[in-house]
Structure formats: structure tokens, C-alpha cells
């Protein structure tokens, strides 16, 4: 039993290892050889190299070098090897790259054609293509244009609406510093393009797309005439809307071409090249190798609406059983037959259904342009057809014309006819109108179709149009809003004062003192009564006790409350007169009641506290 379990475990482990390490079943690819010249334009007396890269070669022989006048070859000793294993979808691939380097020195300026270089790998001989080399004299100044730009198209003469690939090519001459014996590579040369101030027209979008992917145009070495350049291609998918040269916007490349180099070292003591000076260069495309052709008039169907590409069409209708005048929703689908997204559907227009005689003789169709919906490589248009007669039995085949740019001809495709059933329009018969005896007919309810747009009628002139409907916010409203709370507050204050007075007998007595004194001082009053009235008045006003109603008490109370001395003196003098008159012979009662009233009036104006010493 234990042995059986072990066997099962071993099988599982082996299977797992086979999954995890598929290298055990990896295969090496067939050998391949690549020949790469380091430069195509060289300086006489300077070394350059030919790298022979052998991929997956086991038995690699020595290169067989041709004999060329003015060119000396040396096979460098030692070969570099690099092993690489790639695992893709569970399959592994081994790649062993061995590089054989051949050094060359050109001795005489001029043009050289190097015959094929041969090398034998695993018994098979591989040969390079013949290579053209330009050998220059190091002492001769380089007067060739350091930078130029052109635009090429594929195809070079597309039709209007046909997808085209335009390529903006920036040609930059590699900078060579004779003194430092250094030539800048394509990556270094790209750094001298002033991207910020350059104008790329429509190609800007392609450049931005590359930038988003952290990429840049990859420069490759190419000879232009007798000179070597790095070419940086920027492709653009283009579709012309009118004939003539492609409209790609303003293009102007700003380039800071180096004029000198110096060697610097970074923090890791690595050698760096740095430009000691630059020469600003501004170039525009010198060549636009493309011309958009107009679509041919010959053979153009009358219902052609500008579609370029290859298409098939289909149609469906719903409902198919309707009455005259009722709407049928027709769905018309145009599918592109070009699989590489070459046929853009964005600008594809719907057929002009309303102007097709096969359709408009039996259907009422809106003439408005309709927008379609794009899904995958299809564009779907929806239109409403209304049959005008019950004799219609089908929606006929709808033709669609397009221009096939590859064949250069117009093609017409059609949908299949869609059978429909149209009943007569419903009408009221006379008996129904006059209330006859015919049986009532159930009619389905219908919704009217609103017509969008258009202004509704004015409001008729009336006094209402002269009114002011805004809220009358202003002083009037403030007064109206403020009056009620102010009135309530006034009432509350008055009633509060009354309540407080009523709650205190002394205060109440003080408040009534004036009125009591006035009533106690009629015109003919005896001195005794005047005396009683005045002392009583002071006692009430000042809150004196009943036993404190003498002349001295009254005068003292007034003085204690800070009443003016003159007034107190007059008051005292009058009281003294009253006292004397009480005991004077009858008829000698010369006390002035008027003066007594005047004194009361003056004291009424005084603020007399109910407490002594408080004014």
C-alpha cells in the first residue's frame, strides 16, 4: 500500500515539473546568420567592423573574406556568445548567439563595393549581400545637408477616402568628431531634435502615441546618394477627403546639430560624450511623395455616397404587418470586408433612401440625414418607412455602392427584399359618422407623432403683460415686515412697565403723588390744607412713612435726594408760611395756592428716588 502511494506521488511530481520546467522539452531553432556593418560611410584610415551574428550555430567556421583593393580585413580573435531562453505559452525556445567580428580599414577615399562575405555554419555556407561603402578623407570638410525631412505614402497615389499610410521621415546625418574619433549613434542623434519647438502637423498624434508607450522612432542607417544618414520614420494612418497632396498640417523640424564633442565621465567613471556646441537647423519637408486621386466619374452609380473600401449590406424591418401610413423601422447594416481596420466607418454615410425611386414610389421616407452606430466593423443605420399604399408587398432590395480602391472600380451590393403585409388605412363609414345602426367597430388607440422644433405662439397683449411679477423687495416691504414685531415689542414694553409699577405699592404711590397733590390743591385752600398737600406729596413721592409728614421731614427728604437748593428753599419757605398762617388771625391766610401748584409741577419734573441719598 505504501509503495503504491509513493508511485502516485512520484507521477504527480514529475507531471508538475514537466509543467514548471518545460525547458526539458525545449527545442533549439534552426541556425541563422546576420551580417551587420557598423557603418556604411567610413573615414579612410579608421577602423570599422562587420559583425557576423550566428544564431543557434554549433559548428561555426572562419569567415571567408573577399579581396578588395584599398580595404584590409582582420578577423578579431575571440568570439562572443550569448545564451537566451524564452518561454512562451508553455513552450521554451533556446537561442545561442555567437558573434564573429571582422575589423576593416579603408585606405583610399572613394566608393567601394564589398563582395559577399561567407561563413560556414553546421556545414552550410552563408553569404552576405554585397555592401556599398563610402570612404571619405578625414581632412575634407563635410558639406552635405545634416538634416532633411520628407513624406512618403503607401500607396503613393491613393484615392479620396482610401486608407493610406503616410510616413514622415527625418533624415539626420550622423555627427562624427574627428578629433575625438567618435561618431554619434542614432539614439544620441535623436536627442538633438528639439521636440518642444518642432511642428509635426498630423504626425504629432503618432509621436504622442509612441511617447505614451515610452517609445520613439527607431533610427536606421541608410545611404542617401553617397552619404549615410539615420532615418527616423513616423507613420500615420491617413484618409484623404479631397484630391491633391495630403493635407498633413504644418511640419517644421527644429534640430540642434552638434558642432563639437567632449568626453566626460559620470559618477561611475563611465565615458560620456557631451556636445560642446550646437547649430540650430530648421527644416520643412522637401518632398511629399504622394498625390491623392479623385474618385473616377466613370461608372459611378447615381446613389453612390462616398463609401470607399469593400462592404456587404443587409437589412431588416419591424414590424412587417402594418396599415398604410404606419411606420416600419428599417435597419440597414453596412459591414466592412477589410479586416485590418483599413476601412474606417466613421465617415460612412447612410444611403439616401428618400431619393431612391424604388423606395420613394411606395414609401414615405424622411429625407433628413441619419447618423449610424458603429459596432466592430459594422455601421448600423435606422430609418422609418411608411407605406403609402396597401398594394406594397415588400421592401425592395436596397442598393449600396462603394468604390473598391484596390480594383479601381465601383461595386454595387444589395440587401435582400423584405416581404411585408400592408392593410388599407382605417376609415370611418357614413353610418358611424351620423350615428347609424351599423355595429360599432373597435379601433385601436393611436398616438400622434409630435413634430419637434418651431416656436409656440406669443401671449396675447393684456394688462397682465404690463405687470411687475417680481417680488417687491424694498422699503415698503421692510416697513410692512417690520411693523408687526415693532408694535408687539412696544406693547410688551408698556405692559411690562405697568406690571412692575403695579407690583410695588411705594412706586404706585409715588406715581400717583402728583395727581393727588393737584386734586388736594383747589383754588380756595386753607394754609393747613396746602401744608398737608405739599408734605403728603413729598411723602408719597419719596416713599416716606405716614409718620414722616412734617415740614422738616419733607424738606430733609428733598435735600437728601439732591433737589436743587433754590427749589428746596422756596418749598421750605412756602411750608413755613403755611405753618405761620395756621396760627395767624383769621383772614390773614396769604398762602399762594398757585405757588404751591407750581412747586409741585417743578418737583414732578425731578427724578426722586424712593430711597434716601439716591438721586
Amino acid at each position: 500500500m505504501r509503495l503504491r502511494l509513493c508511485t502516485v506521488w512520484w507521477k504527480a511530481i514529475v507531471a508538475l515539473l514537466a509543467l514548471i520546467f518545460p525547458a526539458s522539452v525545449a527545442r533549439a531553432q534552426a541556425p541563422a546568420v546576420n551580417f551587420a556593418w557598423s557603418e556604411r560611410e567610413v573615414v579612410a584610415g579608421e577602423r570599422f567592423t562587420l559583425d557576423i551574428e550566428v544564431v543557434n550555430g554549433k559548428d561555426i567556421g572562419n569567415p571567408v573574406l573577399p579581396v578588395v583593393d584599398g580595404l584590409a580585413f582582420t578577423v578579431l580573435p575571440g568570439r562572443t556568445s550569448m545564451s537566451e531562453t524564452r518561454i512562451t505559452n508553455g513552450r521554451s525556445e533556446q537561442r545561442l548567439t555567437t558573434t564573429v567580428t571582422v575589423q576593416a580599414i579603408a585606405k583610399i577615399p572613394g566608393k567601394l563595393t564589398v563582395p559577399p562575405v561567407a561563413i560556414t555554419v553546421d556545414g552550410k555556407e552563408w553569404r552576405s549581400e554585397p555592401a556599398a561603402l563610402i570612404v571619405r578623407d578625414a581632412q575634407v570638410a563635410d558639406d552635405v545637408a545634416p538634416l532633411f525631412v520628407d513624406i512618403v505614402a503607401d500607396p503613393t497615389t491613393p484615392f479620396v477616402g482610401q486608407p493610406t499610410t503616410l510616413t514622415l521621415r527625418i533624415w539626420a546625418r550622423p555627427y562624427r568628431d574627428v578629433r575625438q574619433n567618435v561618431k554619434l549613434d542614432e539614439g544620441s542623434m535623436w536627442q538633438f531634435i528639439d521636440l518642444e519647438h518642432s511642428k509635426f502637423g498630423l504626425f504629432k498624434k503618432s509621436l504622442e502615441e509612441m511617447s505614451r508607450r515610452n517609445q520613439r522612432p527607431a533610427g536606421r542607417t541608410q545611404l542617401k546618394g553617397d552619404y549615410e544618414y539615420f532615418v527616423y520614420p513616423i507613420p500615420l494612418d491617413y484618409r484623404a477627403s479631397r484630391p491633391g497632396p495630403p493635407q498633413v498640417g504644418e511640419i517644421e523640424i527644429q534640430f540642434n546639430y552638434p558642432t563639437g564633442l567632449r568626453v566626460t565621465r559620470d559618477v561611475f567613471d563611465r565615458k560620456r560624450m557631451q556636445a560642446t556646441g550646437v547649430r540650430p537647423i530648421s527644416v520643412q519637408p522637401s518632398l511629399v511623395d504622394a498625390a491623392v486621386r479623385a474618385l473616377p466619374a466613370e461608372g459611378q452609380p447615381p446613389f453612390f455616397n462616398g463609401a470607399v473600401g469593400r462592404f456587404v449590406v443587409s437589412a431588416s424591418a419591424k414590424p412587417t404587418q402594418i396599415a398604410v401610413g404606419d411606420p416600419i423601422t428599417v435597419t440597414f447594416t453596412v459591414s466592412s470586408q477589410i479586416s485590418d481596420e483599413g476601412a474606417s466607418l466613421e465617415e460612412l454615410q447612410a444611403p439616401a433612401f428618400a431619393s431612391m425611386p424604388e423606395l420613394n414610389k411606395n414609401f414615405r421616407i424622411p429625407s433628413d440625414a441619419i447618423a449610424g452606430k458603429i459596432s466592430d466593423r459594422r455601421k448600423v443605420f435606422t430609418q422609418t418607412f411608411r407605406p403609402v399604399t396597401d398594394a406594397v408587398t415588400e421592401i425592395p432590395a436596397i442598393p449600396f455602392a462603394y468604390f473598391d480602391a484596390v480594383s479601381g472600380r465601383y461595386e454595387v451590393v444589395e440587401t435582400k427584399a423584405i416581404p411585408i403585409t400592408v392593410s388599407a388605412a382605417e376609415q370611418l363609414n357614413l353610418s358611424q359618422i351620423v350615428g347609424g345602426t351599423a355595429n360599432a367597430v373597435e379601433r385601436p388607440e393611436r398616438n400622434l407623432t409630435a413634430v419637434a422644433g418651431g416656436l409656440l405662439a406669443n401671449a396675447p397683449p393684456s394688462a397682465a403683460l404690463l405687470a411687475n411679477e417680481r417680488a417687491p423687495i424694498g422699503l415698503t416691504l421692510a416697513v410692512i415686515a417690520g411693523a408687526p414685531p415693532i408694535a408687539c415689542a412696544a406693547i410688551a414694553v408698556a405692559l411690562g412697565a405697568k406690571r412692575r409699577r403695579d407690583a410695588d405699592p411705594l412706586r404706585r404711590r409715588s406715581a400717583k403723588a402728583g395727581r393727588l397733590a393737584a386734586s388736594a390743591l383747589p383754588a380756595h385752600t386753607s394754609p393747613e390744607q396746602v401744608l398737608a398737600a405739599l408734605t403728603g406729596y413729598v411723602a408719597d413721592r419719596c416713599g416716606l412713612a405716614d409718620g414722616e409728614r412734617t415740614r422738616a421731614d419733607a424738606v430733609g427728604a428733598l435735600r437728601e435726594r439732591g433737589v436743587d437748593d433754590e427749589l428746596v428753599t422756596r418749598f421750605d419757605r412756602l411750608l413755613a408760611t403755611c405753618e405761620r398762617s395756621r396760627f395767624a388771625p383769621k383772614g390773614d391766610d396769604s398762602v399762594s395756592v398757585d405757588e404751591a401748584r407750581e412747586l409741585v409741577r417743578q418737583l414732578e419734573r425731578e427724578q426722586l428716588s424712593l430711597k434716601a441719598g439716591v438721586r
Partner: protein
Amino acid sequence: MIRAVAAVFATLVLASATAAADLMPDLVRGQDAYDRGIALKADGKPEDARAAFAESAALFRRVTQEGADNADLHFNLGNASVQSGELGRGIASYLRAQRLAPHDSALNANLATARSDVRTKLSGTVEGPFGSSIAWWRIVSERSRAIVSIVAWIGFWSLVAPSVAGRKLPASLRMVRGAALTVAILVGASVAADRWLAVARPIGVITVDGVVLRKGNGEGFGPQVEEALTNGVEFGVLERRPQWLRVRLSDGTEGWIREAQAEVV
């Protein structure tokens, strides 16, 4: 009490009255010109029709300048302006009418039609003080709300007065007093909110074609967007400086335009 409320109504009505008798002829002539424009348009004379509509708009506008301020009048002025080709001024008039009668279906239909004729189509909407869906109170016009608020306010104080005088009110009247205060405050606050929004977040409409939205308040500033704005484009006003407005379009784009190129509602 009843007399007091009646007096308040009378005051409010009088406060809003205009010189109706003087302006009625202009109103009638304006409508006549509008009807004439409709007839000329039907006769296939668009230029003559446009002139008649322009005359109608001028007369309606004069009535508004004399103090009449109501939704129907602004609606008529909007119709005449749109028909005369002044799309932006028409939309501005509709927006003024909408402030007073926000749920008028005919008004909203004509405003939608006018907006559909604006050539510069922008995403989003200009969030002005009169179109906000959160302002539920606009189901009632501002004037009606003001009257309701004042009447409730006076009613509340009328029921406060007996309590101040020491009389105890029955429970039912105390409830009425509380309700009156609530209504007065809420409805009054809605009027105040509308007024505040109109001042704090004004909106406007461009009234000419080819308006350049600039980066600053001067012709020396470069354009903010490549496209020129067309007649009828609505915006919110962010800032005012002499002769210039800083605006925000419905798609959120901000910039400066000349004040003379627009009408602030």
C-alpha cells in the same frame, strides 16, 4: 386683522403696478408687428418678416425698460428676438421669463427650440440660478412666494400680540401661529435665496457670432480655444471687470469675453 391683511395686499399690488395705460399701445403694436412677421414669413418674404420681428422685439423691449417685468412679456420678447435672428438675446429673454415662471411648458419648449439652433454645441449645462433642479420652491413664482411670506409673517405677529398682552391663546391658535412662522421663514428664505443666487451666480448669453474666448481681459490676450463662439452660447459669469466678463461655458471651459458681446441675465 382682516383689514390689515387687505391693506398689505393692496400695498403689494400697488408697489408692482406700472403705468399700464401708457404702455398698452406699445404692447399692441409689438404684437401687431409680430403677427405681420408671421404672415410675411408664410408668404415667403423672410427679409421683410425679419424686419417686422425686429420691430416687434424693439417695442416689447421698450415695455420691459419702462418697468414691466413678467414672464409673458419676456416670453414674447424672446419669440420676437429669435424670429428676428437675434438668437442670443432671445435666449436671454427666455431665461428671464423662466426665472418668473420656471414651469411654463410653452416657455421651456421655445427655449429648447432656440437652444437647438445654437451652432456651437457644448456638452453639459450652464448651472444658473434659474434652472437648478434642487430649487424646488420655483414651482411658485417669486412674487407669489413673497406675498405668502408677508401674509404669514403678519399673521404670526397678530397671534403673538394677544400673548404679549397676557391673554392665553387656545392650542389650535398656537398651532396656527407656529405654522405661520414656519411658512413665513421658509418661503421668505426661498425668495432671498433666489435673489442671492441671481447676484452671486449670474448667467449670460453670447449675442453675436465669432466671439473669441480669450485667456485674459484684453484683445492682446490669445484665444483660449481654437473655435470662435457663436450667437446663443450660454455661460456662467465668474467675474466682471470693466468691459470684460470672465465666463465658464457649459463644458467647463473658462475665459474672457467682451461684455458688449453678451447679455447677462
